[in-house]
C-alpha cells in the first residue's frame, strides 16, 4: 500500500518488459468498465441534483455537474462521463466534451463559490472533442477560461483523476488545491498515440511515448503534478466500483477537512503559487535538474504552520537528476 501510494506499484523487482507494463497500465486506465463520475457518485453520495446547460448554447452530457451531499456535506461535483454501453456512449459523445461542457462547469463552479461549497472534480477523458463543431464554438477558449477560473475560485477544489487525464481537455477540470489520482489512472500532455505519431512519426511507438512521458499516476506523483495515488481494490477499479468509491470518498473528505481549515485567502494564494511554481528551468550554464518531490502532506502541513511557505515541486533546484526508468 505504501509502495502504491508512492507510485511504486508496477511489480516487485524488475518487470520483464517495462514498456509492456506501462502499456497495460494505460489500457487499465481506459477500461470502459471503470466507474465514471455518475457511478462513483451513486456509490458515494447520499443525494445528487444534477444541473444542466451552459446558459449559452446547449447541455453537454459528456460533462456532468451538480450538487451532491456526501457524508452529510454539501459538495459541488463535476466530472467527465463516458457511457457504459453503446447507446449511452453515443448520447454522451463517447465522453468527449464540447465547449458547452466546460461552460456549464464554470457556471456551476461559480455557484459553489457563491454558496460556500467545495468542489470535487472527477477527471477521465481522452481529450476534448476534436471535431469542427467543438473547435469553432471555442473549445480552446472554454478550456482556457475554465482553467483560469479554477486558479482563482474562492472555495476548496479537490481533483481526482479516475482514468485518463488527457491533455487540455482533462486540464479544464483538473486545477485544484489537491490533485489525487486512482492507482491505474494516467495523466499526460498528449495521448501516447498522438505523441508517438508526432515525435516517432509512427503510432506503433505509443508504448514508448507512454513510457517517455511518464504517464502513470505513480510517476505523476514523483513529478509532483499529482499529490497522491488512491489505491484501487482487487484487480482494478472496474472490479469493485463500490469499494473504489468508498476509498475515493474517504481520501477526498480527509483532504477537504484539511483544506477547510485554511482561510480562503491562504487557500487561493497557495493554489496560485502551486501552479505558478510548476516546471523546472535553470539559468544558463548551470546544470539543469528536475525538481525534488514534495508530498502534499508536507505542503499542507507547511500551509497550516504559517508563516513559512513550503517549497513547491517544480521550482528551481540544483539537486541531482531524478530520472528513473519504469
Amino acid at each position, binding site marked *: 500500500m505504501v509502495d502504491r501510494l508512492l507510485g511504486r506499484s508496477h511489480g516487485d523487482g524488475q518487470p520483464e518488459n517495462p514498456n509492456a507494463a506501462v502499456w497495460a497500465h494505460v489500457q487499465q486506465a481506459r477500461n470502459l468498465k471503470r466507474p465514471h463520475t455518475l457511478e462513483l457518485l451513486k456509490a458515494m453520495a447520499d443525494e445528487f441534483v444534477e444541473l444542466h446547460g451552459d446558459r449559452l448554447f446547449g447541455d453537454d452530457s459528456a460533462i456532468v455537474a451538480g450538487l451532491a451531499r456526501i457524508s452529510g456535506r454539501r459538495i459541488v461535483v463535476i466530472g467527465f462521463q463516458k457511457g457504459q454501453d453503446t447507446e449511452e456512449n453515443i448520447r454522451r459523445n463517447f465522453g468527449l466534451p464540447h465547449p458547452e461542457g466546460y461552460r456549464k462547469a464554470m457556471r456551476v463552479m461559480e455557484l459553489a*463559490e457563491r454558496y460556500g461549497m467545495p468542489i470535487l472534480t472527477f477527471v477521465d477523458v*481522452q481529450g*476534448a472533442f*476534436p471535431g469542427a463543431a467543438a*473547435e*469553432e*464554438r*471555442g*473549445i*480552446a*477558449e472554454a*478550456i*482556457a477560461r475554465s*482553467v*483560469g*477560473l479554477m*486558479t*482563482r475560485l474562492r472555495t476548496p477544489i479537490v481533483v481526482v483523476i479516475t482514468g485518463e487525464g488527457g*491533455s*487540455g*481537455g482533462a*486540464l479544464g477540470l483538473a486545477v485544484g488545491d489537491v490533485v489525487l489520482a486512482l492507482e491505474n489512472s494516467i495523466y*499526460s*500532455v*498528449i*495521448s501516447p*498515440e*498522438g505523441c508517438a*505519431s*508526432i*515525435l*516517432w512519426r509512427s503510432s506503433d511507438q505509443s508504448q*514508448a511515448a507512454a513510457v*517517455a*512521458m*511518464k*504517464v502513470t499516476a505513480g510517476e*505523476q506523483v514523483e*513529478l509532483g*503534478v499529482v499529490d497522491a495515488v488512491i489505491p484501487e481494490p482487487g484487480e482494478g477499479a472496474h472490479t469493485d466500483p463500490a469499494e473504489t468509491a468508498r476509498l475515493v470518498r474517504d481520501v477526498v473528505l480527509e483532504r477537504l477537512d484539511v483544506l477547510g481549515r485554511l482561510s480562503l*485567502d491562504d487557500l*487561493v*494564494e497557495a493554489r*496560485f503559487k502551486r*501552479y*505558478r511554481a*510548476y*516546471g*523546472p*528551468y535553470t*539559468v*544558463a*550554464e548551470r546544470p539543469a535538474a*528536475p525538481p525534488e518531490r514534495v508530498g502534499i502532506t508536507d505542503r499542507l502541513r507547511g500551509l497550516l504552520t*504559517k*508563516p*513559512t*511557505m513550503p517549497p513547491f515541486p*517544480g521550482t528551481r533546484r540544483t539537486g541531482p537528476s531524478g*530520472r528513473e526508468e519504469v
Partner: protein
Amino acid sequence: MPVRLPFRPRRDAYPPDLWTKCPGCAEMLFNKQLDKSLRVCPHCGHHFRIPAKTRIEQLVDSGSFIERDSDLSPVDALGFVDLKAYPDRLMAAQLSTGLRDAAVWGIGNIGGRPVSMCVMDFGFIGGSMGSVVGEKVARAGEAAIADRIPLIIISSSGGARMQEGTYSLMQLVKTMGVVERVKAARVPFISVMTDPTTGGVFASFAVVGDVNLAEPNALIRFAGDRVSSGTISEELPAGYARAEFWFSHGFVDRIVARAHLRDEIIALLGFLIAPPLNGSAETPQAPVSRPRSFLSALTGALTGENVAESHNGETGASRGEAPRG
C-alpha cells in the same frame, strides 16, 4: 540581467538564402526585398513566420526593448528520449536560433508607451511551450502588473511541449493564473495570434486577451491531441481554422496585416490604460483574491520576500484598499 550566450546561431531557423519561394503564390522573392516588406509577400500578402527578435524590432520604438531573463534555460526533467534525446533537440534549437528557448520577453516602448512584451519563436521546436516559455509568459504578466503597463503576448506555437510532459500542461495553468491576476489588476492585455497558434497556447493565454488580434491567414487551432509542430497545416480545408475563420466565429477582434500591426497596437494602447492604483482605486472587477492578498502577493513577488510572510503584517501596498473618497 541578460547573459551572453556561449554560442552564436549556426543555422538560422529562417533560412537566409538569397531567394525564397512564396508558399502563397509560388513567386520567387528576393530576401532583402522580403525583409523590407516585413516578410510579407508583396504579391499575395502571405505572412511568413518571423523570429521573435525580428518581431520585436518591427513593433517597438527603436532601441527601447530591454530583454529580461534571456538566460532562462530548459531542463530535461523527464529524461525524455524519442528519436532523439530532448537535450540534443534543445541544443540543436539553441544553435539554430540563438535563443535558449521558444520565447523572448522584456520591457519596451511602443509609440512611446511602455509595455511588457513576450514573443514566441516558432523556430525553436515549433514554438512549443515548456516550462521556460510558461515562465517567461508569467514573468511578463507579473511585470505588467508590477509596473501597471500593458501586457502584449505574440503567439506563434505548435502548443505544449511534449518532451516536458505534464509540466508543459501545467504551463497552461501557470500562465492563466497570471493572466487572471493581470485582469483583476485592471492591467490591459493584448494578445496577438500569428501563424500558427495552436494547442495549449491557443487554449490558454492567447485566446483571452482584452483584445485579440491575429495576422491574416494565421492558422489558429486547438484540435485536441492532434496539434503539434510540423504536422499541423496539411489536411485542413482552405480557410478552416484560419484567422478569418476565428474572426467570423467571434474569437478574434481584428485581423491586422503585419504592416499595420504596430500602428494598431499604438491605437489600442491609447485606449487600454491601466487606471492608477491610488487612494481612489476601484476594486478589481474580476472576482479574484481580495485586493489585500493580491497586493501582498505582488509585493512579495517584487521584493523577492517570502509571500507567506507578507500575510503577517500590513504592507504599504494594502493602502490601495482605502475607500474612495
